């Protein structure tokens, strides 16, 4: 009997939820559009960062790299990452053209062989240089990459945030969904929970120490990713973050990849 009652209850809940779900989706989408619109116009960026990897035994290893990006009108960003350490991978570089719909284009430069290698866009769920960040965690945010659903308002470090679920459109995403906490004052993502394909909580990313660069764009200095399933974690610590430095297209082609060092 009880089972039957619960059955009715759950049907009722589902119905009531679906009545409001269109509204929640619209609100989720609107928040994403606003966040993207506010962050347009930074032109190009350049930063130095440390990547601190920590395994389940608490052992750490630090990698250093440089990241450059350029904004594209009506398309995803282009970016070039160059590794400075560990020293045996020094000079390894990674060029990526991200697209809102369709596959990203990615090339890897292997300095020992002087070889430029196109890599499979399906690698988006793969680990970025042994870290807990996957390739897709590091590509530019584009509104069309997800569908949305607003969940609730919640405080993060005393700031009021919208909590929104993002469902990846790409069937090759490593995630079923992401839940993001976006602060209502500045539209900054403060925290993201990543759910794997089986809809189990996989990772949490926390962004802290925001800097207001050129008094126009907020950028976090610390990105901390914790993998709940493996117990491993990765911290990205940015320094020398500059925007609108005058980089142009010639800094983001395959010739630029070959001379990156």
């Amino acid at each position, binding site marked *: 009997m009880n089972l039957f009652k619960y059955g009715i209850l759950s049907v009722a809940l589902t119905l009531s939820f679906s009545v409001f779900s269109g509204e929640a989706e619209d609100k989720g989408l609107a928040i994403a559009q606003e966040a993207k619109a506010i962050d347009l116009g930074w032109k190009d960026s350049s930063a130095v960062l440390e990547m601190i990897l920590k395994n389940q035994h608490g*052992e750490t290893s630090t990698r250093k790299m440089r990241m450059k990006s350029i904004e594209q009108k009506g398309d995803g960003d282009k970016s070039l990452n160059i590794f400075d350490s*560990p020293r045996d991978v020094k000079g390894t570089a990674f060029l990526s053209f991200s697209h809102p719909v369709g596959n990203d284009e990615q090339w890897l430069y292997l300095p020992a062989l002087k*070889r430029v290698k196109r890599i499979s866009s399906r690698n988006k769920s793969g680990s970025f240089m042994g870290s807990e960040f996957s390739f897709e965690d590091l590509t530019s945010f584009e509104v069309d990459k997800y569908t949305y659903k607003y969940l609730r308002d919640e405080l993060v470090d005393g700031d009021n945030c919208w909590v929104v679920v993002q469902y990846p459109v790409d069937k090759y995403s490593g995630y079923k969904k992401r839940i993001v906490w976006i602060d209502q004052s500045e539209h900054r993502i403060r925290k993201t929970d990543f759910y794997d394909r089986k809809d189990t909580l996989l990772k949490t990313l926390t962004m802290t120490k925001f800097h207001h660069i050129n008094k126009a764009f907020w950028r976090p200095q610390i990105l901390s990713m914790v993998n709940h399933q493996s117990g491993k974690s990765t911290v990205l610590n940015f320094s020398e973050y500059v925007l609108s430095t005058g980089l142009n297209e010639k800094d983001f082609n395959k010739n630029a990849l070959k001379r990156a060092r």
Partner: protein
Amino acid sequence: MFKKFHHPTMFCLLGGIFFILPTMLSSVEANEFEVRGNFEVQGRFFHEDALFSSQHDQQLSLAASPEFFWRWNNGDDSFEFVPSARVDQYDEERTHVDIREFSWVHVGDDWETRIGIRREFWGVTEFQHLVDIINQSDSVEDVDNEDKLGQPMINLSLVRDWGIIDIYLLPYFRERTFAGAEGRPGIPFVNNNPLYESTDKEKHLDFAIRWAHTIDDFDLALSWFEGTSRNPNLIPSITNQGALELTPYHAQIKQLGVEFQASLESSLLKLEVIHNENNLEDYWALQGGIEYSQYGIFESNADLGWLVEYAWDERGTDSNSNFQNDLFFGNRLALNDIQSTEVLFGFSYDLDFNSTSVLVEASRRFGDSVKVSLDARFFESNEIQDPLYLFRRDDHIQITAQYYY
């Protein structure tokens, strides 16, 4: 023991360039000037008796490759100097010095000039690099011919919406390096005085041009080369002492190269085709296959790649290529751990000679600066016309420890 380095002044000078200078300069922290590189200790261990009495069962060597780099004019100009040296316990041909890079690069808005000694890689496939023709192989470094000698060149690169065009003038030819009498694996009777079809010999001016472009998921390149063939024909003869000798002969060739890669989700389809025109026998050859990748296997960060390729050469068993009708299978496992542990397994099977060769390469980092690689190679060949036949007793394990600074 180190025959080419018996002179003390020479030894000190080379020691300075390869060991002392780089470590002194690497402490200089400046954006405009940079030094890095590595030292290496390597041992090769063979488990069968050598085919030739001059060869040994164990062979040690030391190598160094510093890189000096200058950048100025806001990064639009740069200069790179990369010498490379190896001292081998027995093989006097493997004990050698080469300049891998000594070049000035100038970057304009949609063009770039690269002048000096350089290495340039073309191609998409993994088990053989058919299209790759600018540089000569430094085959004493390793039997896989992945190491290349520096090539003098003037290279103009033009970046256009419809692709990148590279034009090369190559004013000097580098002879292929071959193992000496005591080198193993090796053929201890290759003559060091190659023959050339051109009367200009190694001073023949070679020319190359390549167009490369990406259209969505497809990477395409077309290339044309005119000049001295990098891949010699080995001509047998009998010396005055009555011994067999192989003399490298370098023909003048015209070679068309086609590279194609389709990046379709988890699979990469790869194809390289060449057409070679020469005075002996024009031919077509191809290398193609598929690379399939699995990401995050065993619920971990590890990636596993599967490779299958096929090689064909129109000349068949008369070809001077080892790969005229060969099948290849490989696996690449990257654990994506802190130590960047990687294992590569490769297997090739010659469908004409029924010979096989197996390769295992494993590497791991220790601490921040030391990388250790363990390579194992096994050869199996029973037919005397098969180029692999001369390596049939050269199964070996190779351990390399590299220190990076």
